[in-house]
């Protein structure tokens, strides 16, 4: 048994524990910024390490835990997302009423859950990883203890999250009951069209859709995105979503390969509903975080449509999209955090005059939103091109047309933010103060989004290698 394969997970957990200990050693009133720096350094080191990992697929714990290009890609994605989130949330965390050290530690634990999800090769490990991530998020969502909205969001997330976990678990028990195994590859050999399997698969997919906030299981997302601390909202929409996709892809392509005809049907319908619904509802939002919630629902719809291709190019396009979404998302949320610090609220009208107060942040926000809308030369366009090229190739022209038209419609509400930023005058003349780290994240997001959009080759190669490592494809 080669335990070095677990290095990433062990490092992250150790780092979290280290932060908790350090936190105890520090005077109570002092800023916890230093803990953040420790975490950032640790993550950078680990991220560097993941790029040195060998390309070969290997397993530990009798095949329950797999390390392949696919899981490494997702781990890199989580680490990048966490790194940026840490960097832009230093100021935010400093303003939290208490338990600031725990904030960093908990977020790292959530990341370890995501990493386990990416590597999980059997249903139970998947469940453990999912729960590790979600339970940590229950706490993090409610982390602004003085805010009613945050507590409400936490409770809501816990109740609905538990319900969805129950559904997931129930589905797993059906599958286990029929196939007699929890390991994905073993399930694949037994998985034939039969009512028990279909019920099990349906329940598992439903449970995951819930975690991914796919319409019609999206009801929780806007409230929770709005109530949660902004860095957590960012992590929910990038990390949690990507982890959900990692699991969904592995289950569908490894365990339920033979049931493709059935799940393709479900996914095509749900993807179309999600894209249309998320776009249309987002138009009416006046709160930026609620708008981002619907926007992220729509993005999940796009990634879901990549599954329709049901081959390596489709998976590659999803991975590509998930990564570029991270870059766009950190940019947008960094700006949201900055504006929130200045105005104390998250309404879209708070963005008015941002272009005159802080041209850099306005540009970053603009580029991030346009990337999500899929306007070239931003990365989102390349992502949509990859997804819909794969989809059209399988003959789902209607889905591609729907997707492109809806992404152009989504420009409408993204431009509403642009209108506030660029057309309207600032509400006050106060200087806009932003920290160096936040500025750094904003610039990286901007450059990353443009870079991937104009020169998508390297990321596409990385995603392609990851997709091809799913041996079944």
């Amino acid at each position, binding site marked *: 048994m080669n335990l070095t394969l677990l290095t990433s997970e062990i490092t992250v957990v150790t780092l979290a524990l280290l932060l908790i200990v350090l936190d105890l050693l520090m005077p109570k009133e002092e800023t916890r910024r230093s803990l953040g720096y420790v975490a950032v350094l640790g993550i950078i080191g680990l991220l560097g390490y993941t790029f040195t990992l060998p390309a070969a697929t290997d397993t530990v714990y009798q095949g329950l835990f797999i390390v392949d290009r696919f899981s490494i890609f997702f781990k890199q994605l989580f680490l990048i997302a966490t790194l940026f989130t840490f960097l832009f949330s230093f100021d935010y965390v400093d303003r939290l009423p208490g338990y600031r050290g725990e904030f960093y530690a908990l977020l790292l634990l959530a990341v370890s859950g995501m990493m386990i999800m990416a590597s999980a090769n059997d249903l139970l490990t998947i469940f453990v990883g999912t729960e590790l991530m979600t339970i940590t998020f229950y706490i993090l969502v409610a982390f602004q203890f003085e805010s009613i909205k945050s507590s409400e969001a936490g409770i809501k997330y816990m109740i609905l999250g538990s319900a969805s976990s129950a559904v997931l678990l129930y589905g797993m028990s059906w599958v286990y009951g029929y196939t007699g195994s929890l390991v994905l590859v073993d399930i694949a050999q037994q998985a034939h069209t039969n009512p028990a399997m279909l019920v099990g698969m349906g329940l598992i997919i439903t449970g995951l859709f819930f975690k991914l906030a796919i319409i019609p299981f999206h009801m929780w997302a806007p409230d929770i995105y709005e109530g949660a601390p902004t860095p957590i909202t960012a992590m929910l929409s990038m990390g949690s979503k990507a982890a959900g996709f990692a699991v969904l892809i592995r289950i569908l392509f490894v365990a339920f390969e033979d049931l493709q005809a059935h799940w393709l049907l479900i996914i095509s319908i749900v993807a179309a509903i999600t894209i249309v619904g998320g776009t249309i509802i987002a138009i009416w939002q006046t709160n930026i975080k609620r708008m981002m919630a619907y926007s992220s629902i729509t993005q999940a719809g796009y990634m879901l449509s990549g599954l329709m291709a049901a081959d390596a190019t489709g998976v590659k396009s999803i991975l590509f999209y998930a990564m570029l979404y991270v870059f766009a998302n950190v940019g947008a949320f960094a700006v949201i955090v900055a504006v929130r610090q200045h105005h104390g609220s998250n309404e879209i009208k708070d963005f008015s005059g941002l*272009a*005159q107060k802080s*041209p850099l942040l306005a540009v970053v926000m*603009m580029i991030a939103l*346009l990337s999500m809308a899929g*306007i*070239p*030369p931003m990365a989102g*366009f390349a992502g949509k*091109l990859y997804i*819909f*090229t794969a989809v*059209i*190739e399988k003959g789902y*022209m209607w889905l*591609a*047309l729907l997707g*492109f*038209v809806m*992404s*152009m*419609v989504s*420009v*409408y509400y993204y*431009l509403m933010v*642009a*209108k506030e930023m*660029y*057309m309207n005058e600032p509400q006050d003349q106060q200087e806009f103060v932003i920290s160096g780290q936040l500025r750094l994240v904003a610039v990286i997001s901007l450059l990353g989004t443009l870079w991937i*959009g*104009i*020169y*998508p*080759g390297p990321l*596409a*190669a990385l995603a*392609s290698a990851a997709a091809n490592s799913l041996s079944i494809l």
Partner: protein
Amino acid sequence: MEHFPLLTAILLTLILGILLIACLPREATQTIKIIAALIMTVALSFTSYAYYAYDFTIGGMQFTENIPWVQDLGVSYAVGVDGISLPMLLLNMLIGFSAIFASWNIDRRAKEFFILLLILLTGVAGTFVTRDLFIFLLFYEMVVIPIYLMVIIWGSTKRVSKEYSGMKLTIYLLIGSAFMLVGIIALYLNAYPAGMRTFSMEALAQAHQLGNLSEEFQIFAFLLLLIGFGSLLSMWPFHSWSPDGYAGAPTAVSMIHAGVLKKIGGYGLIRLGLLILPLGTKFWAPVIAVLAVANVLYAAFIALAQKDLKYVIGYSSVSHMGYVLIGFASLNVIGINGAVANMFAHGILSALLFAMIGYVYEKTHTRYIPDLGGLAHQMPRVATGFMLAGMASLGLPGLIGFIPEFTVFVGAFKEYPVYAVLAIAGIIFTALYILRVLANVLFGPRRAEFDECADVQGAQLVPLIVLGSVLVMFGLFPQVLMGIVNSGVEPLIPLLAQLHAAPVLLGGILQ
């Protein structure tokens, strides 16, 4: 100069300008304007050199460069110009150069304005020089967002609010482009089997000759492209963004949008539609011809009834696009020559018109025709500009508009005699509304309320001089334009002949 990457240099010059201005403090408005002007001067000189150095006798793509870009998609950074794209590139630079000077009085948030203007010009220039469909798309949609921002920040609210016109313009064009995107992806997938796929326009054009694209597919894909490019070209019934959009937009945006951006639609129809999907083009050509007549007549009628100067010119530009479309639909060398030349001619004259309107509005604060009158007394130079552009617009011989329009009709008459006659009738209406506007705005008794308004002078005189002299020069020496256009269209002869021989499809119903 053999291996000098001229076209890349043009693009880089513009990008350098954007970066330079981005680094300047925003209070330095004068410096910003001077740098923008210098950058455009350099870009315009590079382009003029390309126009001068382009070898007619050889024709085809020249100044080519090719760098592999994204391997797994088959994208390469390939640029080059031929007789169709080079005039368009020159048009872009001429109008961009003039637009900088037409915006000389913009002092509010000048830094953002000139950055956006240069992004816009880079985007348009990029679409004309690229030979790769992927790069084409990157540049094509790059222009949409700057336009939106420019309309909502510096636009004017008259009949419709600037937010409304900006959003309408943006969403119309984007939704049109969604159809186009699907068409392009489908084309990309169908042209070659996996592994050999490419976005190269030449290679895609080969696919038809190789028989990789079935007739049904071409018909379908061309329809998608037609919706996309048709909306951009303000083809009836996708035209309604155009007058509203121009009315809300600041002068420079109206000039560039009406002058050159719209022409990407026509350019795309020829470059992607005709060259890559010839059978699809053949199938839809009669429909385009009918829509073209609708464009010409319907828009001309509406222009007759307008009271806002910008709306008259907005509808007039919709009407003129009808000539481009019918020239294209005729699918013969003369017609397509006329269509391309007409795009150039209309670009110059509409940019001049919008520049003059912008100036009049800046001074008198009104565009309402009944409120204006006798401006020739106070503004003789503006009146000259208006007259030049107006006369060119109604196709007066000796100015730039005549030869292209004449060529279009000669080409169209062969294929669609009835439609051609109807479209020619459009000239009468054009004359009617143009002369009416000119008479009401420029002539008549002197009005005291405009005595304070100074005539155009200084930097703002540049658009009048540049565009006005091009109007006259290309009118007197049409060969300068027609020669190069013809060298671009001539290589199409075999393709067109082949199409002519192909069985008549939908044409049988409508002809």
